[in-house]
């Protein structure tokens, strides 16, 4: 059963990923991305990271991709990009080389470490207890971990989100007449 789930989810992921890279139309690419993200969420469930799977769907597929689509529609940049022309001739060969090199090396590293021993991780007793609970053990364990061991990082990410929102509002608003423009683009498009 797990094998079947894995194969389907993996197929979704890969097809979606390839779709993002090769589709000319931005909206199509965004929808391919959704497929990838959903496949990832399924794989999360298979790995017993239930909470993360939920967050993946809600935040990534739900919020981020929607944001992408909003921007695409708002700005009307939905014209297709011509994939046949490539200004830098070396770019595609280099990209191919880099991609294949990466996957080769990382893949080989992964295969070579199959026999690696499992490091002994001592987690706090609360986390261990929570993990054993079958119904919401994962979320309990995760909550215990985030809010005790990593609470500082958690607080900082909240600050980060506030900063991100404020910054984006500042960056993206239409400047009033006479106001300092943050991004100026004098060069015209060919």
């Amino acid at each position: 059963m797990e094998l079947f789930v894995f194969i389907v989810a993996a197929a979704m992921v890969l097809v979606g990923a390839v779709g993002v890279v090769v589709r000319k139309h931005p909206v199509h690419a965004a929808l391919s991305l959704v497929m990838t993200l959903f496949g990832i969420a399924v794989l999360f469930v298979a790995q017993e990271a239930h909470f993360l799977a939920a967050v993946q769907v809600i935040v990534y597929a739900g919020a981020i991709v929607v944001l992408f689509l909003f921007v695409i529609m708002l700005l009307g940049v939905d014209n297709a990009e011509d994939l046949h022309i490539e200004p830098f001739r070396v770019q595609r060969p280099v990209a191919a080389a880099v991609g294949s090199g990466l996957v080769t090396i990382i893949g080989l590293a992964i295969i070579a470490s199959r026999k690696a021993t499992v490091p002994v991780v001592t987690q706090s007793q609360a986390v261990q207890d929570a993990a054993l609970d079958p119904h919401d053990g994962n979320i309990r364990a995760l909550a215990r971990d985030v809010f005790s061991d990593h609470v500082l990082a958690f607080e900082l990410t909240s600050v980060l989100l506030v900063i991100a929102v404020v910054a984006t509002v500042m960056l993206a608003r239409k400047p009033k007449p006479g106001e300092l423009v943050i991004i100026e683009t004098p060069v015209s498009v060919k």
Partner: protein
Amino acid sequence: MLDLVWLIPALPLAGFICILLFGRKLGDPKAGYFATAMVGASFLVTVGVFADMMSKTAEERSHLRTLFQWIPVGSLKVDLALLADPLSITMCLFVTGIGTLIHLYAVGYMHGDSKFSKFFLYLNLFAFSMLMLVLGSNMLVTFLGWEGVGTCSYLLIAFWHQKDSAATAGKKAFITNRVGDWGFMMAMFFAFWAVGSLDYSVINHSLLSTSTATAIALFCFIGACGKSAQLPLYLWLPDAMEGPTPVSALIHAATMVTAGVYLMCRISPVLEIASNYAGWIIAIIGAATAFYAATIAVAQNDIKKVLAYSTVSQLGYMFLAVGSGAYTAALFHMITHAFFKALLFLGAGSVIHGMHHEQDMRRMGALRKLMPITAITFIIGWLAIAGVPPFAGFWSKDEILLFAYDKSPILWFVGLVTALLTAYYMTRQVIMVFYGKARWNDAHEEHGAHGDTEPHESPWMMVTPLMVLAVLSIVGGAINLPFSHTTERLVTWLEPVVVVRESTTAKLPLAIIAIVVGLVGIGLAIIVYAKHRVKAIEPQILADAWGYDRAVSNFMGGPGRQAFDGLAWADGHVVDGAVNGTGALVRSIAGKVRKLQTGNVRTYAAAIGAGVVLLLMWFVVVRGIL
């Protein structure tokens, strides 16, 4: 008292600084008296140190006073240290003593000059440098003083720099000295390389190989040739007469030019273990210079030029002594020469001053009635230099001739002929200036004199030093009479520091020959110049100094200049070309590397990707992740 040895150079230095700050305010004559007082105080300290030293035994007389660590770099450790031992204190005594007298003299001589205080500024600086030279305990402190006196010599020769000839003479002195300085520096390098130290105590007492010792000795001699005006580097000294007469007396008669002799005596232990031919070279050059300069002096008409060539000649005697291994004789002659040559120069200055700056002897004459004290003191100096006993010059010159005979009878003969010539030209000078017909009236129509055309005696501050020096010239020989060991006081005094030799030749016959030769010289001059029985032989070639000066100028102007132009071209094209070429190369590389900055995000991403792959490959290959 011995630890106050540092005061000896410090007082003139303090004088220099004070005159630098307040000289113009002090003015004429207070600045002069102040400078004199400083050097005089230094003299008193020297006497005190000398007395202290005399009270000690011979072994205890060397005192090293380290002021501070000057250069501690790696294995080169040089301290600014003063060595007070018999040799250096002897030098200090007559440097400060004669220096004080000349400072006093200069107050009178330079009266009315617009740069009065500047003169004493330089004189005090000179005193400081000379004292550092002789008191230095290592070659580098000596070199410091060496360069200092060279600089002061330049500044003082060119004191009236508005006159072209004076400025040129100053430059000539400095540059010629520089050639000699190269020799000194090479000697220092050799010494450091061989022994690892520049201290005299180390150099003089270590076992140097013959070749190293020869190298050090000969390079020091090259430096001495420059500073003490021997062939072939003597040509700056006659031109140096452009400076005021006190300068000529102090620097170019009594002190600076003796620095070379001092240096050779200081390293006498090294010279002793050097090859034989080193001593021969020094002695031959000394004798040749003595003879050469004496021949030129015979035909000179400027009162100061005669004395200048005479100085070169007498210095030649001193080097003859050094080459023959008679260091104490050289130092003895140095001391007596300082007395009578300073006296002669100051007397000449007095004459010039009284004659309202007339220097040509052909326009003088019969001055002894109008300037009696000058005349008498000058005559005493003349008798001393001519080698007439019992004046000081006789004893010292005789010592030198004695040791020269030991070395080689030929050298002795050359020295003897030079003695004859010395007596001859000095008598000539005395007759032309003080006796005979008064010739200065004929010149005065062209001279444009300032009212008072009659020559007059000089003021007290100029005449007093003359009298003191005259007394010293008479009794100066007493410090080293050759009659017995007890009377040879200078030899016993210097014995622990300087190598001492005994002579095997009989002294009396040589002494009698020397006296006779001196009297013959005097007689000849009287016949030619006073009685006018024989026509004077003053060939033009002698007056031109054998054309040597002109030869040097031609060489420097012709092939010399071409060589220098070639060097300048090489510097401009090769050296500058390399430097500029490096700059141009860097620019062109940068221009090509600049193209990497495309500004395009995707190329940057490609570069990052490639870099990541390479990094991972490094991990795999080198660290063996797989």
